[in-house]
């Protein structure tokens, strides 16, 4: 392991990544919205060999007692065995939970969805928005790919029809879009040795010292952050990493 890290560091010193990219360069990204016909919103994002689907389902539910005037929001990630031979079936593990929670915070804390507008009857009935993220192939950087897919899926989400009896008719979709007021994206910056890189490969994720995932709105306001990895960061380093994330978020935004 130490050996492998030294080898990767030697290349980073020359400004070369493991796959030949520059340090602050993403792999090729494609965004394909609306690929699941039965979902209210969906998108498939590819970053290099990583491929992830985000699907949005909408339901009518009772709001939580502590937020009676808001519709519910839920983000879930499923790392199914298909996407990587090392993934196991069963309840979500640490990695899946972290991905889901960090993406959830970006959407929730930026107030991306006006949850009050989802409320139909205070304390009784409101739209719930459920976002599920499932990779088809996991080859690094699931967080950025997942956040991008989630936003692309939210952007093409439309409400289903409500029948006269007040239940959902999933077969009929309306033209009404989700009340989106912010568009959060996430950029993960890694620190390996003294170098900063974005869009990590699995090899790089394995030996990172620290990582910072920054959720940013279109105005480049920070709305959520997650520090990962075992090494602590200095304030100066954090500032540099946030700056990198802001620059990269602008690039990613052009793909939507």
């Amino acid at each position, binding site marked *: 392991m130490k050996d492998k890290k030294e080898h990767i560091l030697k290349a980073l010193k020359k400004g070369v990544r493991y796959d030949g990219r520059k340090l602050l360069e993403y792999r090729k990204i494609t965004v394909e919205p609306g690929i699941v016909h039965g979902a209210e919103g969906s998108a498939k994002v590819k970053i290099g060999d990583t491929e992830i689907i985000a699907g949005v389902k909408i339901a009518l539910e009772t709001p939580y007692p502590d937020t009676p005037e808001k519709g519910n929001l839920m983000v879930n990630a499923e790392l199914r065995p298909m*996407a990587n031979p090392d993934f196991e079936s069963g309840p979500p593990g640490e990695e899946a939970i972290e991905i889901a929670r960090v993406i959830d915070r970006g959407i929730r804390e930026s107030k991306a969805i006006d949850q009050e507008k989802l409320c139909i009857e205070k304390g009784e009935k409101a739209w719930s928005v459920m976002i599920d993220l499932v990779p088809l192939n996991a080859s690094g950087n699931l967080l950025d790919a997942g956040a991008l897919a989630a936003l692309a899926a939210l952007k093409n989400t439309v409400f289903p029809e409500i029948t006269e009896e007040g239940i959902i008719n999933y077969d009929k979709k309306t033209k009404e879009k989700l009340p989106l007021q912010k568009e959060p994206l996430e950029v993960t910056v890694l620190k390996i040795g003294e170098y900063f890189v974005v869009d990590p490969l699995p090899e790089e994720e394995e030996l990172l010292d620290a990582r910072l995932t920054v959720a940013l709105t279109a105005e480049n306001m920070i709305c959520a952050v997650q520090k990962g990895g075992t090494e602590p960061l200095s304030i100066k380093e954090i500032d540099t990493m946030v700056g990198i994330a802001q620059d990269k978020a602008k690039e990613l935004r052009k793909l939507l």
Partner: protein
Amino acid sequence: MKRNDGRKNDQLRPMTAKVGVVKNANGSAMFKIGGTTAYAAVHGPRDLYPRFKQDPEKGLLRCDYNMMPFSGHGNRVRPGGGRRSKEISMVTQNAINPVVNLTDFPNAVVDVCIELTETDAGTRCAGITAASMALADAGIEMKDLVIAMSVGMLEGELIADVNGVEDCELGATDIPIAYIPSMDKISLLQIDGEISREDLKKALELGKKKCLEIYEIQKKALKEKYSEKVKSK
């Protein structure tokens, strides 16, 4: 009879197949028929745990069928599987097992992961069709590909490739079958609904004929991946 999506009784929905869609897998394939899309990925042959499941004579084929949470037609599908996906995983395994030869891999396991990204009936069949392509792509020894498709009986008429409306709203009798051409045998058969003995025989004949149509699409998709490699220069 006029079908709700305008098809003839014996007409399949539009299909696409692609091989090599999951980079991390040893073999993989996607099969889309109408609004149903199945991905299949093969991991292994690899170590099998728990050890008591090991077979010293040959490797074990293990299938895992799953619907993605957003793939359903109505409500969100709760993750974590359940009785339905357990049963489908089992019948899928039994449908494919007769063709694969894993005698080179005693004590090991070949895992076939099947994921449905979107569904409009016929999901287990699409899964089996994709899985057999994925196994071929993984280089597993097999006597043949397996093709699956659902035949239906609606208002006294036989229909091929039952769709969601026919299955759930119009109450068609649903008969998913899997067919192995070289053996001329059926390796999956389930029936949901009423049908007479005579009609069942006809239904199976129709199913067999339509499976052979899908077979051509499977072969083409597999050859496309590998011929491209030979030609590309």
